[in-house]
C-alpha cells in the first residue's frame, strides 16, 4: 500500500508546459448532403418543415391545381389558425414539462365574455375585449398558481380547470349564441381577426397573420431572452433550474398566464372565424393543440423543441385533412387515414433526425 502514495511525488510538475490550444478537428466530409444534414442537426425545427413540404408535394402531385390553388392553400392557413394560436400557448406550457388541458375552455369562455359583455351589458366592444383577455389571463393565473405554488400536477390542475371553466361558460352564457349578423351590425371590432387582407394575390385574414406573427414573436422570445431560456430550464430540470438561480415559480406562473392570454386571443380570433359567439365551440382544441405540438417535435417531457415546429405541426395536420377531403375520402375514411398519416409524418421526422447527426 505504501507504494501508492509514495510514488506520487510531484507528478504535476509537467503541467506547466501542457498544451493550451483548444481542440479542433478537420472535417473531411463535404458535399451538399453533408451540409444539409449538418443544417438539420443545428436546427431540428427544420425537420417538421421538411415533412410539411413533403406532404404538400404529395397532395400537390395527387391533386394538381385543385390543391395548388391559392384558394386551397390559404384555406389551410385559415383552417389552422385557431389551432395554431392555441398550440402556441400549449407549446409554452409543454416546454415547462406541463400540459394545459384547459386551453379550449379558456378560449371559449373568453370569447363568450367578449360577446356577452358587449351585448348583454352594452359595454363598448374594446372594453369587453379587454375583459375577455383579462378573463383568459386570470384563468391562466389560477392554473399557474396551483402548479407552481401548490405543486399540483399540471394534468390534474388543468383538467379540473377545464371542467370548471367550461361549466362556467355554459352557466354564464345560458348556452345562448350571439349571431354573426348582430355582431357585424353592432360590434364589428369583434370580427377583427376575420378581416381579409390581400397580400400579393393571396387572401389572408388578420387571424392568420396574428398566428404567424405570434409564433415568430414567441420564437424570438424563447431563443433570445432570459425569460425564454428560463422556460426551457424549468422544463428541462426544475430542481436544477431552481438550484442555479431561476425563480421557477415566477416563470411557471407567467407561462400559464401567458398561455391563458393567448387562448383569449384565440377566442377573439374564433369570433372572427365562425362569425358568431358560440359557447359550444373549441371542444377539440385540447387534443388538436397537443397533437400539433408533438408533431412539431416538442417533447411532452419538457425543455426540448422549438415553437416553430408547432406551427409546422399544425399545418401538417391541416394539409392532411384538406388533402384527404379533396381526394374524396368520406368522413370516416378521412378520420382513419389521418391517423395513419400522423404516425407516418412522425416516423419520417424521426428518420430524418436519425440520419442528420
Amino acid at each position, binding site marked *: 500500500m505504501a507504494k501508492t502514495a509514495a510514488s506520487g511525488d510531484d507528478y504535476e510538475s509537467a503541467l506547466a508546459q501542457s498544451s493550451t490550444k483548444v481542440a479542433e478537428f478537420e472535417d473531411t466530409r463535404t458535399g451538399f448532403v453533408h451540409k444539409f444534414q449538418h443544417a438539420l442537426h443545428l436546427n431540428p425545427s427544420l425537420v417538421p418543415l421538411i415533412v410539411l413540404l413533403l406532404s404538400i408535394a404529395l397532395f400537390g402531385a395527387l391533386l394538381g391545381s385543385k390543391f395548388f390553388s391559392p384558394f386551397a392553400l390559404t384555406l389551410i392557413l385559415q383552417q389552422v389558425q385557431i389551432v395554431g394560436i392555441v398550440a402556441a400557448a400549449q407549446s409554452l406550457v409543454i416546454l415547462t414539462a406541463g400540459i394545459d388541458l384547459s386551453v379550449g375552455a379558456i378560449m371559449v369562455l373568453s370569447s363568450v365574455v367578449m360577446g356577452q359583455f358587449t351585448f348583454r351589458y352594452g359595454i363598448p366592444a374594446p372594453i369587453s375585449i379587454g375583459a375577455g383577455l383579462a378573463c383568459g389571463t386570470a384563468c391562466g393565473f389560477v392554473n399557474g398558481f396551483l402548479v407552481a405554488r401548490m405543486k399540483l400536477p399540471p394534468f390534474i390542475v388543468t383538467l379540473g380547470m377545464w371542467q370548471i371553466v367550461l361549466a362556467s361558460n355554459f352557466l354564464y352564457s345560458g348556452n345562448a349564441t350571439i349571431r354573426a349578423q348582430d355582431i357585424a351590425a353592432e360590434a364589428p371590432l369583434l370580427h377583427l381577426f376575420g378581416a381579409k387582407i390581400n397580400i400579393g394575390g393571396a387572401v389572408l385574414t388578420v387571424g392568420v397573420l396574428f398566428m404567424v406573427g405570434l409564433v415568430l414573436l414567441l420564437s424570438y422570445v424563447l431563443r433570445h431572452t432570459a425569460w425564454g431560456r428560463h422556460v426551457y430550464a424549468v422544463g428541462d430540470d426544475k430542481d436544477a433550474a431552481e438550484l442555479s438561480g431561476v425563480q421557477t415559480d415566477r416563470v411557471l406562473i407567467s407561462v400559464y398566464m401567458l398561455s391563458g392570454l393567448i387562448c383569449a386571443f384565440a377566442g377573439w380570433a374564433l369570433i372572427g372565424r365562425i362569425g358568431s359567439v358560440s359557447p*359550444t365551440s373549441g371542444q377539440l382544441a385540447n387534443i388538436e393543440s397537443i397533437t400539433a405540438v408533438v408533431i412539431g417535435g416538442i417533447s411532452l417531457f419538457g425543455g426540448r423543441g422549438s415553437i416553430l415546429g408547432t406551427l409546422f405541426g399544425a399545418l401538417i395536420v391541416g394539409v392532411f385533412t384538406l388533402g384527404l*377531403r379533396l381526394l374524396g375520402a368520406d368522413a*370516416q375514411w378521412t378520420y382513419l387515414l389521418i391517423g395513419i398519416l400522423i404516425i407516418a409524418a412522425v416516423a419520417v421526422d424521426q428518420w430524418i433526425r436519425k440520419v442528420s447527426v
Partner: protein
Amino acid sequence: ESACLITKTDTNPFFVKMKEGAAAAAAELGIELKTFAGKIDGDHETQAQAIETCIADGAKGILLTPSDTSSIVSSVQQARDAGILVIALDTPLDPVDAADATFATDNFLAGELIGKWAAAKLGDEAANAKIALLDLAVSQPTVGVLRDQGFLQGFGIDLADPNVNGDETDPRIVGNDVTAGNEEGGRRAMENLLAKDPMINVVYTINEPAAAGAYEAIKSIGRENDVLIVSVDGGCPGVQNIADGVIGATSQQYPLRMAALGIEAIAKFAETGEKPQPTEGKDFVDTGVSLVTDESVDGVESISVSEGMDLCWG
C-alpha cells in the same frame, strides 16, 4: 314526488330549453326535478349512470333523450322494473316500446320537409343541383342519419341503405362532412366541401349552428346569394337567420312541449298510475314539426318566419 330529466348533452340550446320547460312544468305541479346530461353527444354510458342514480334516488319518473337508442334499453328496463315511469323525449328508443311512452319529433319527417322544400325551390334546376351534406359526427348517431336520409328522400335522391349516411351514389352529392353540430365545425366542413367543388348550391345541415358556420364559409367566397341552406331545429337564432336570409328553411321542433308533456305525464302517473297513450296511428306521441320559411313552395306545408318566431325556443 321527484322526477329526472336526462338529456344527451346540456350544452345544446335544444336541451337547455327542454330543461327549462321541464323545470317550469315541475315547479307548477310541485314535482322535484333533477337533471342529468351526457358529456358529449353519443355519451350513453353517462346516461346509464344517470338512470342508476335516479333509481337510487327513488324517482317516480324519468324523461330521457337517448344518445344510443338501443344500448340504453337495459338500463331503462332496470328503471321500469323498479316501478319508474320512463318516457323517451325527442328520440324514440329501439324498440319503441322499451319506454312507457315517447314524446318526439319525427326526425326523418323533419329532414324530408326541408328536402322537399329545397327541391321545389330549385324547380327544374334540382336535376343539376350540387349538394353538400353537413352531418353530426363520424359515429353517425341516429338523429343525424334520420335527418340526412329524410332530406335526401325529400329531395328525391336514392338512399341506398337508409341507416347509413354517405353511401349514396347520386352524382349531385358533392360530399358529406361532419360538424359536431356547432359553428366551428360547420365552417370547416363547408370549406372542405367548397374546396372540392366551389359551385355547391344546396347545403343540408344537421342543425342551425352548423348552418351559421357554413354560411360564413360561403360568404367568405362571396357566394352567399347563390346557395340554399336548409336546416333543422327552429331555435330563435335559427329562425332569425331565416329572416336574415342566412338559412332558406328549417324544420322546427318543440322541445318545451315535449318536456312539459313529459312532466305532466309523470305527475299523472304518480297520482293515478296511468300511462300516456301514443298518437293515433303512430307508436309515439308526435309533438309535431313545422317547416319555417318565408318562401313557401307548393306541396309543402309551412309556417312563416313570424309564426316561427312565436314558437321558437332558445
